[in-house]
Every structure is written in C-alpha cells, then in structure tokens.
C-alpha cells in the first residue's frame, strides 16, 4: 500500500492531487470544497458505493474508505476527511 500503487492520472490532467470519492458522499464533498478553497488543482476518481469493491482505494491508503487523497508533491497518501482537511490546511493553508 502506497501512493506508488495508484494508477497514474490521465495525461490531460495538470493536477497533483488525486481525490478518491463516492458520488454525493458528504465527507468527500467536504474535501472537494477544501481543495477548491485552497486553490489546489485536483483530479477526481469515483469508486463504487459497495465498500468491498473499492480495492483501488485500499491499494493506495490501506483502507476502503473514502475520501482518500494522493498528493504527488509530497508523496502523501491518506484517508479520513478530518485528517485530510488538517493535512491540506497545514500544507497549503499559508499558516493562517
């Protein structure tokens, strides 16, 4: 399990963050909004509602929960929206 296990983003994407998300999942929408607030270009990868079918997420962060992110600038791959929000603020929030 690591960011290196992830399928590369499509070439057209200039993003450096991949967001694994489930359609209409409020925790995922929270992180999408946080990424927009911080003006971070991100690429969305949608997974299935069925928890057991999310092996693409498990390979990257070790769990099948969403949201999860991969940040290529820092090599970080992490799950859990509270942790992700804190990480994004600490890394890209400009200290305020």
């Amino acid at each position: 399990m690591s960011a290196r296990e992830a399928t590369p983003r499509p070439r057209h994407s200039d993003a450096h963050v991949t967001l694994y998300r489930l359609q209409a999942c409020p925790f995922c929408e929270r992180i999408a909004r946080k990424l927009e607030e911080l003006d971070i270009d991100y690429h969305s990868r949608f997974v299935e509602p069925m928890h057991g079918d999310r092996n693409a997420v498990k390979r990257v962060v070790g769990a099948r929960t969403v949201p999860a992110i991969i940040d290529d600038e820092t090599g970080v791959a992490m799950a859990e929206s509270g942790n992700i929000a804190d990480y994004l603020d600490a890394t890209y929030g400009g200290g305020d």
Partner: protein
Amino acid sequence: MDLDFEVVDLPPADHVEDGDEAPGFTRPLVNAEFWEDVALSDLLADAPVLLVFTPMDGAFPSTYIWNELRDRGMDEYGVQVVGVSISTPYEHMTTIEERGIESFTGLFSDPQNDVAEAYGVSHSLDGMAGVSEPRPSVFLLAPDGTVEYAWVADEWPAFPDYDAVEDAVIGL
C-alpha cells in the same frame, strides 16, 4: 438468419470515415474499479484505440458485441478496446463484470450522446421518448488520431464484420 421480412434500414449517416481525423472528447471512462475523466488524446498517447459505440448497456446488441470482442481477445493485438454508450458509470461497471471485459481499457459514459453526435452515429430511438443513443459502430484510430477503419450500422440491428475489424487491428 433468414427472415421473411426486411430488417429495418437506418437512414444514411454523415459519419466519420477512413482517413478522417477522429473528433476529440473527454468523458468519464469506467474500468473495473473506478471512473475518472479521460480524454481520447490521453489514450491515443499510449497506443491505437478501437472505439466501439454500442446501444445502451443491457440491450442484446451490446451484449453480443462485447462477448464477441472478448472471445476474440481483441485487446491482445496491442490496441486499446474502448466502448461508448449512454449508460451510467454504475451500469458500465456491471457490464464490465458480467461480460468479463476487465482487460479492455474501459467504457466511456456519455448520457447526453454528444460523442455519438460528433461521430455522426446518433440514433433516435422509436418508442423511447427523448432518448438517443449511438448506433452500433466501430472506429480504429491510429495514435495520431487518424481513422484507419470505420464501420457504422446501416440496419437496426446490425453487427460489425468482426473478421474485418480484426484484420484492420492486425494490419495497423
């Protein structure tokens, strides 16, 4: 199959042909595990693309087409086999599993049918108000985006000449 009536003709289509440049597009591309926005040009940068337009997932022509392409191992010739239909990503995931086409590159989801419009292969369905979908069609695209082979259904239903498709893929 011998029928004692004529299969319904589809009207002439002003579709993309051999030698044309394939119209570019970006849509969610669904694989066995997830979906994400992918541009046709992203795929062409890797290898040739066999772009297969089908009726909506679950319609028997779609089932037959995917079964045949799977049984022929069409992806084993170094071409990326890619579908397009109006079905949602959720339906595409089911189709990929049921048809056993996990080794194909994926299925584009195009509910508005814009991609079929761009390729000139749109089909307005009789008896389903407001619904258009692609007519069955196959385009083999070289890495520079040139259409090397094109087949578009002229009857409803009609199926690709699979041997001709396979020859075109082998010849690329």
